[in-house]
């Protein structure tokens, strides 16, 4: 397994928003999903995940609700708000610009910007 990479400042917010764009999810699920999708490269420490969730909630980009899971347990589900959706679009655009810029500086042109 390649070593996990420290997340850039602000990237975590983007990842959370992107993950929630698909469906409402609880904290544990998000951590698992991101780890899975990144093929274990990105491991989210809970120490930073929950403060980030709270911060986004205070900003009004996401909102939370208690639901029961399929295993009949109570969990706190997070969902994108309307502001969150617009924010995601902006953040994605910013990310694209940033990664393209970095790639150009490094002299490589990637076909996809992940």
């Amino acid at each position: 397994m390649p070593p996990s990479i420290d997340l850039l400042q602000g990237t975590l917010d983007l990842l959370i928003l992107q993950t929630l764009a698909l469906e409402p999810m609880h904290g544990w699920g998000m951590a698992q999903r991101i780890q899975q999708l990144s093929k274990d490269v990105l491991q989210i420490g809970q120490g930073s995940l929950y403060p980030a969730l709270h911060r986004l909630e205070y900003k009004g980009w996401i909102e939370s609700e208690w639901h029961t899971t399929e295993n009949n347990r109570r969990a706190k589900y997070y969902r994108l708000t309307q502001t969150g959706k617009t924010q995601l679009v902006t953040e994605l655009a910013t990310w694209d610009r940033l990664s393209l810029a970095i790639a150009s500086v490094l002299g490589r042109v990637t076909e996809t910007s992940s």
Partner: protein
Amino acid sequence: MISELLTRLRFLILRKRHREFDDEIEFHLNEAIKSKIEDGLEPVEARRQALIEFGGIELTREQCERQRPGWWIGTVIQDVRYAFRGFGRNPLFTISVLITLALGIGSTTAVFSVVDLILFRPLPYAEPSRIVSLGFVHPLERQEFVMGRFYEEWQTYQTPFSALAAQSTGVHHCDLIENEPTQRSCISFQSTFLPLFGISPALGRNFLPEEDRANGPRVMMVSYGLWRGHYDADPHILNRMIDVDGNPVRIVGVLPKDFEFPTLEAADVVFPLALNPAVQQTVNGGFGESMRLFARLKPGVSVAQAFAQMQPLFNGDLKWFPPSAKSETRLSIRTLRDRQMQESRLVAWVLFCFVLAVLLIACANVSGLMMARGAGRQRELAVRSAIGASRGRLTRQALTETLVLSSAGGLAGLAVAQALVLVFVHLAPAGIPFISKAHLDLRIGVFAALISCLCAVIVGIATALQKPKLAALNAKTSMSRHHAFSRRVLVTTQIAVSIVLLSGAALLIRSFMKIEEQNLGMRTDRALTVEVTVPQLRYNTNQKVMDLYLRLESSLRRLPGTRAVAVTDSTPPGGWQDGFRFSDLHVEGKPPTPAGTGGTVVGRFVTPDYFRALNIQIFRGRNFADQDRTQQQREVILSRSLAERLFPGEDPVGKRFLDTAVSGAGAVVIGVADNVKNSGLTEESNPEMYTLRRSVSGDWSGDHLMLIVDSAMPTAMLQPWVRSEVSAIDRTIPLRMEPLNASLRRLADRPRFEATLLGFFALTGLVLSIVGLYGLIAYMTAQRAQEIGLRMALGATQSNILRLIANDGLRMVLVGSAVGLGIALVTSHVLKTMLFQVSIYDPLTYILIPLLLSSVALVAILIPAHAATRVDPAITLRAE
């Protein structure tokens, strides 16, 4: 955006419950454990690993909590509460800081508010720094003036000024006659006057050039006060014709509300100056009328350059002057501010320095107190740091504490300042410009509060920033060497500054006492001065004026208890009085005195009772007698100093002045009177010549006339009688009465004000320094309690301990006093011109002040030192 704001607000008010967070984390952990068990781990091991992976739960909770908007408000409240608890535990410290801040900020702000008006107030004119007052000055008139004849030339040939404008010298009375006549103070200026100062009338217009011309249309402007008060702010006042002194005059304008004459005179009515060049060549011996002249410097021209450019014109003018005046007359150009401030400037600066010194002491005190507190709290800080408080948190805590303390002190200071300003305004003599307008200036209050609080904050944070040493956790005496040394230096400085302040104040107080005690050469306690304002319209000849005064004199003489009633043109020791040059006196049979030498002689034109009314002793010869008033011969009485100068070693009685002498022509000396203080209370007296005012109409010209009544009756009873006697003669004459003592007290107002203020600040400084000294000794004694206990256990006596503690304090007092005395001796020459008959090296002051300070300081040292000797070794040693 709005919804985001609302969310923020909602969360600000409704804090999330702790439970919710716990549930969320619990769910997360359970899921993690479950997945680890599915991976085949033992439940116990799975739980352990999940917990490790998660990291600190409390830390996460803390970090989530910090995401909440407004999270910091909670910590601030916490800090403030903690600060208050700390203050409550240590009331002595808290009260000391509060008193120090209140006194320091209060006195600084109050004095700044007053001094600001004098030193830094912007004058209410356009570009006031470019406006100058210019003209001649000579020893009899120290304010610039110019004569009409020369002004004509100056206007034509001057180069440094973009505009010139003249104003009549002083106000005169004029009668406004409408339904009922009222007497007003009137003044004249040129049509260029208002534009030069950048002022436009509140209503109507300025004088037109054709109105400012001899025999031009009669017009006038009125003051805002007169317009509001007398004409009920009538908007249709323009073009109204008013009868002034018997002539109809048209009102063309109203001056702005806050208009100030550059001479700070108060006038209700302004006429155009209307200079007539032809007349100016003839009146006043061909010199023309005297005027006040103001000018605006051209851009880029300095006062010194203007002076140099005007010098040739002035030299040309000098040729016309009589030889006596030539050597004494100078050209003077100074900025308007300099003219207005006169000698107030020095007082203001001295006051300002005093206050800065007090502020310095206050800052030193606060710093010392904060330092002591910081040192005393090292242990507490070390504990808090050890259980996880970050450096930033500790600093924030210290900052909160000092800010709470500082703002409380600042508020108290502003209250003190407001009280002080009221006291100042109440105490202030009339001579200090603008002081009645002084009010608490909040900008200044904030400035003072900032400065002293800055001291507190810097020292407070500096102590908090020091990395708490682990050693402090178990240390018993935590005051470091460094702290002790800095505090000693602070206290020594305070004592030195106090010495400087105290000796300055003591010099002024001694000078004030000398002024009060001096022998004036007369008795003023029974004399009442009565000034009547004679309406010029009805008393238009000298004969009528004389008849009025003679009737007044005889009717006042008939009042019960009256011992003497005199008519004079002025009273000593201050205020307006007539004068002439010594060299103008020419004694028969003696060579004339060289022109321009010998200085000034005061001249008074009196009736015979003058010397009895003021109880002035006649040395030689005799007093004027009532029968002398009707004879042809002009008689004079000389003051002793004048007699000694004119007739050294001779008997002056019977000597005569030449008929051609400029002053005292043809008069014969009939007596010599004692010297009377006649140039104010503090100036060197001038020689004086009293001329008999005969009952001849020619002796009754001039505006300045007053009566002096010497009565056995108390003045309160006398005044209504005088009033009814005067109105029995002429009901419409306004009169003003004042015991001579009251005007005397007014002359002493200024030194009294200076001495009171500076004395107050010196005392404030002293109190603060003593508080500082006491605080330090008490603190060090407490710090050394264990050492003292140990010494006592080993056999030290109480007096040993007393000496140990007291020595420390006395050394600071001695060093501080010595340094302070040195500085005081050097700086006191600034006060030189403010002192009266007191040397700036007055030995009494420089002996008494250190003694006073040392004895107060000794008490401040002995109290805590004595407490130290009560230490019970058994208790302090066990405290380890």
